[in-house]
């Protein structure tokens, strides 16, 4: 029997939160969190506290992505330390509140783990979003979830990137998991999408319970899609979109896009092709919320990540 080196022992994960409604019109997470606030039996596990939480209640009320600004982009030091004023943006105020309950971000007092539930209009299936490629605990969890869901696929998007990483709501916790399930229109709840999201949370919580119980997870590796570049729509001088996602690319999230493949199509029938040098894997293809962010899709490349053997330090403490 190989045992984890003592260096690989990690603190148990006791305080867990599940966020819904970070974007108020992504309804799977909104409905699941509301449901669990009334009846949390489904998400409770031995040896941990799991707290469901609605992060942006005013946006949920309006069924809008946000009120003043995107809540999932303001968890940086600048916004979290902004002096409270009368005209402070609603989402910045919420971010500070969330940071005070579940953080402070980067401190020992922060929650151990946060799942943040999102939907996309893109055909991304059940996607897990990883922020830190060195987070062995989370990589091990993703490995566990992928195995539990197979043969259904569960792609992992790695957003660890010097310019493209954004300050997410879940980043207040020590370990953070973005759950992104699609395709689903904003403001709509589909039973199949809700069910897929629910399965991810079930397996994620099962993993934490096993980990806390002292189970050792041997070294593992997973394939991830590493974010590389944002691609905007072709626009005219006035900034208006002049070509759309080509039907050969639509719904083809995670599929290889090779040099010369069609990417955009304009209303006169002209095709714009991918002119890169190597194959990329597009995702967030034609996401509604990203038109304003000037993003038609993001290019990713496939990378294999490995995680060390991990084990909870709980047994040694007892």
């Amino acid at each position, binding site marked *: 029997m190989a045992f984890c080196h003592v260096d690989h022992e990690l603190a148990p994960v006791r305080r867990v939160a599940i966020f819904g409604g970070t974007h108020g019109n992504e309804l799977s997470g909104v*409905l*699941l969190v*509301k*449901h669990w606030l009334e*009846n949390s039996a489904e998400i409770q596990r031995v040896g941990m506290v799991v707290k469901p939480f609605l992060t942006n209640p005013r946006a949920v009320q309006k*069924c809008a992505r946000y009120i003043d600004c995107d809540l999932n982009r303001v968890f940086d030091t600048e916004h979290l330390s902004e002096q409270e004023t009368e005209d402070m943006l609603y989402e910045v105020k919420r971010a500070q509140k969330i940071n005070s309950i579940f953080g402070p971000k980067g401190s020992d007092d922060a929650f151990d783990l946060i799942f943040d539930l999102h939907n996309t*209009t893109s055909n991304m299936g059940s996607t897990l979003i990883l922020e830190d490629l060195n987070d062995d605990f989370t990589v091990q969890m993703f490995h566990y979830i992928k195995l539990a869901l197979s043969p259904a696929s569960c792609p992992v998007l790695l957003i660890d990137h010097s310019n493209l990483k954004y300050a997410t709501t879940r980043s207040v916790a020590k370990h953070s998991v973005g759950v992104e399930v699609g*395709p*689903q*229109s*904003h*403001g*709509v*709840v*589909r*039973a*199949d999408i*809700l*069910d897929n999201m629910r399965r991810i949370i079930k397996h994620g919580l099962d993993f934490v319970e096993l980990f806390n119980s002292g189970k050792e997870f041997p070294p593992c590796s997973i394939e991830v899609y590493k974010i590389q570049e944002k691609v905007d729509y072709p626009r005219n001088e006035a900034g*208006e*979109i002049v070509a*759309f*996602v*080509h*039907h050969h690319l*639509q719904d083809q999230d995670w599929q290889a896009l090779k040099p010369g493949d069609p990417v955009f*199509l304009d*209303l006169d029938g002209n095709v714009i092709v991918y002119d890169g040098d190597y194959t990329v894997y597009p995702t967030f293809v*034609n*996401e*509604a*919320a990203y*038109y*304003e962010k000037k993003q038609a899709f993001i290019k990713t490349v496939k990378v294999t990540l490995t995680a060390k053997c991990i084990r909870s330090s709980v047994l040694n403490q007892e």
Partner: protein
Amino acid sequence: MVTLRRPLMLICLAGTEQVDQTLFLIMFKPLKRVVVTGDTHGNEMSGVYLAKHWLKNPSELQRETFSATPFLGNPRATEKIVRYVDQDLNRSFKTEILTSSSEGDELYEIKRAKEINQLYGPKGSTQTYDFMIDMHNTTSNMGACLIVDSTENHLIMHMANYVQKNYTLAKTPIYLYKLGDEESYAIDSICKYGLALEVGPQPQGVVRADALKHMRGLVNSVLDFIDLFNKGTAFPAFEIEAYKLLAREDYPRSSDGEIMAIIHPHLQDKDFDPLNPGDPMFQTLDGKDIIYEGDTPVYPTFINEGAYYEKKIAFAKMEKLTFSIPAIQAQTE
């Protein structure tokens, strides 16, 4: 007897009470003044982009006997990529609203409705435009749906029949929206005749190439029909299947209005398929099914439409009927 919308001449070859529609030929004036709008709802993007495109380059809307004029119905909603700014524009064309006094604090869509009514109406007058195409998208799986007020509108039923036969890249069901004697509140009701196109599924705020292609195909097919009609082509009588609105079904809600159950996975995406007594309609988050308890099958449409949560509509219940439509022809000079 049949009621006819604006027949100029009715040739009745049989004097019996049992009306055989095949014995009629109904004459209509040609459709010369035609408008096309695409952004009645500012986040339904097929129409938004097509209308903008045609404003720059309208050649696609030209036919031998007429040229259709594109216009933007709700530019402020379009700019913000929202359905509406103050209220639903496509519910703002009742005579009562169009003739209300103009106080300074009017809602934007009411102001727009009055402007559009001046440009292409006024509703019910002799000066109205002949025909309006109104382009919409839905998050429901409705294909390339043709929305007509009622089958008594024989000219538009011929148009729908022509589109069904000539645009075959998507299903093109006919949706009859007139419920009882209710006056139409839709934008196309200000013209003599109107047809709304409802293409889905497409999320709001998103342009899908496939939905855009279908929308474009429908519009071109409609314009082709009008051109043939204007040239004096006789269109013979026919029978056709169409779905007529019966009632609207809301989500099960708690006493404080919260949705308690969602569209059942067996019903999702099944627009225009029969829902039989005993079939599941909704599912609670505890996994309980709520079944349809009616006596006869209905045909749900607008299943899980994003914009209808606030209107308290989970789906529209339709009946499937067969109609016989008499022959028509344009009255040419």
